[in-house]
């Protein structure tokens, strides 16, 4: 059975792939296709954030008693990324290639940093603290690709 960390990391990679295809479409000037891929990406990411914020983080906070620890930082970054999604959506809507790609690049950098912190620090901690079978089941229920 895959670990919590593996499943969540795989989901990051899945999101990256959709992101890359959206970005490619925008770079080629295919805005309609780009927008639909982009919305698809936002939906996938939202699913991932929701799972973390509503199931995994609260469970972790309860077990460890760390309310103001890493999960707080991660929640803050989720908020920030949601704001970035909105600006990118309007840039694609406005068919502004340079603005859209520039903002995408900013998001990419921000998101990769965020993922790295989760994958290297937080997810291993989840592996150690949460009941494996139960949590893995929850994850596979929540992340329908």
């Amino acid at each position, binding site marked *: 059975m895959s670990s919590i960390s593996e499943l969540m990391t795989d989901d990051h990679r899945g999101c*990256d*792939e959709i*992101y*890359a*295809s959206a*970005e*490619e479409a925008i*770079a080629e000037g295919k805005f309609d296709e780009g927008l639909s891929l982009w919305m698809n990406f936002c939906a996938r990411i939202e699913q991932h954030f929701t799972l973390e914020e509503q199931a995994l983080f609260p469970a972790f906070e309860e077990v*460890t008693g760390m309310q103001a*620890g*890493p999960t707080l*930082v991660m929640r*803050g970054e989720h*908020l*920030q990324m949601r*704001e970035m999604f909105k*600006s990118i959506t309007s840039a694609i809507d406005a068919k502004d290639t*340079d*603005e859209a*790609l*520039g*903002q995408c*690049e*900013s998001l*990419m*950098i*921000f998101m*990769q*940093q965020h993922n*790295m*912190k989760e994958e*290297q*620090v937080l997810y291993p*901690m989840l592996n150690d603290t949460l009941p494996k079978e139960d949590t893995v089941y929850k994850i596979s229920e929540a992340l329908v690709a």
Partner: protein
Amino acid sequence: MNRDTPLNFDFVPYWTIPFRFFLTAPLFALIAGMALSVLGGMLLFGSDTALWQSRWFKEVILTLHLVTIGTVTMVMVGALFQVTSVVGGCLLPGGKVVPASVYGCLTLGVMLFSIAMLNDIAWLFAAAACLLVLGLMILAVCGLLAVSRAHRSSPTLMAMRLSLISLLVMIAVGGGLLLMHGYPEIVGFDRRWTDFHLLWGLAGWVGLLIMGVSFQVIPMFHVTPSFNLNFQRWTPVVTFLTLVAASVIDFFYAGGAVSSAAKGLLLACFGVYGIQVWRLLNKRKRKIEDVTVMLWKTAISSLMGFMVIQVVLECGWFGIVNEKAWLLNGVLLVFGVIVSVLGGMLQKIIPFLSYLHMQRFCAGNFEAIKSLPHMRAILQIKHSRYFYRLHLSSLLFLMLMILVPEVTLVAGLSLCLEFSLLFYMTARVAVMVWKAERNSLVVNVP
């Protein structure tokens, strides 16, 4: 990791710490370009100058170190201050004093190195040796401390540790070489140490650090699959052990078959690594134009060229055993491989760092964050494209220069253009960050 330690994800060194190194690095390459232009001009219009006849000419050692210390080491040191916080969750100890003293020693040290080489002043060689050894020793010791305090271990941290150990070896011998130039009658003049020094500098300090950092940044910046975990674990260690063996064997049995074999093995380590990087980059999900990827590919192609020439040289095929081939290979390795990789990394690190810091100045104010310049407004893609083209032109002219010394002036001018542009690009971003910080102080202080 220790579960009781509160996790501080926001451990980032103050922005001027890495930026001062990134801003200074292009200036030394610019000086190297000017030096080449002057030499080339003298050759074309003046006296009977002989250029690029031997690896031992002072102008070779001088321009080489303007680049290897002034530019390459400068960028790597700046990156080290930054990278340990991202990959290890730890900062180099010593607050602002350590970066300031490393910076001072390095900058002043390279200048004295150059002046000493130009004018053959014994005590300047000694002064340069003291400064460079002191500065880089502080860096290596603080770096090793930081790595050992990291929350967890990783192949990247392991490679960094080995690279810093190599730095210590390289710098000790390098200091000795300077004294050898200043006081040959006391120290003696044994050039086996030069080869020892260059192996540890190139394969150890530079090669292993690039390797370790690339394990993190290639998947992160280009959305490629990760390097195979066993590959990450073993390549730096095997490379390091091969380096130890090759340098010692070469010292005692230079020119023999065993020494050639050991150096060949060391080269093979980097060859395998290069192929691995190329394969990953081809698998990248992001297909949009990316100057960093082009620079990586330039570097790997240069590495392959270097390997071919090196094999021909070691085997003595085609009777090519002359000094020109050695110098040509030096250009390929230092400028074609190393400067390309670092130039490419800068195209990512500079916008990334500046964006990160400007975001922090906004202190969570979403409206302010939204008004920040985006990545393509920070480093303009057209500037990066020009940089790439100028870099290719410099590389070609530098190689040509070795074969046809009359080209030296053109090569020097190309270098000057390339690095003036890089300086402008970096300075523009630094001003942007500085303004963002000033504005945030105005807003946040009642």
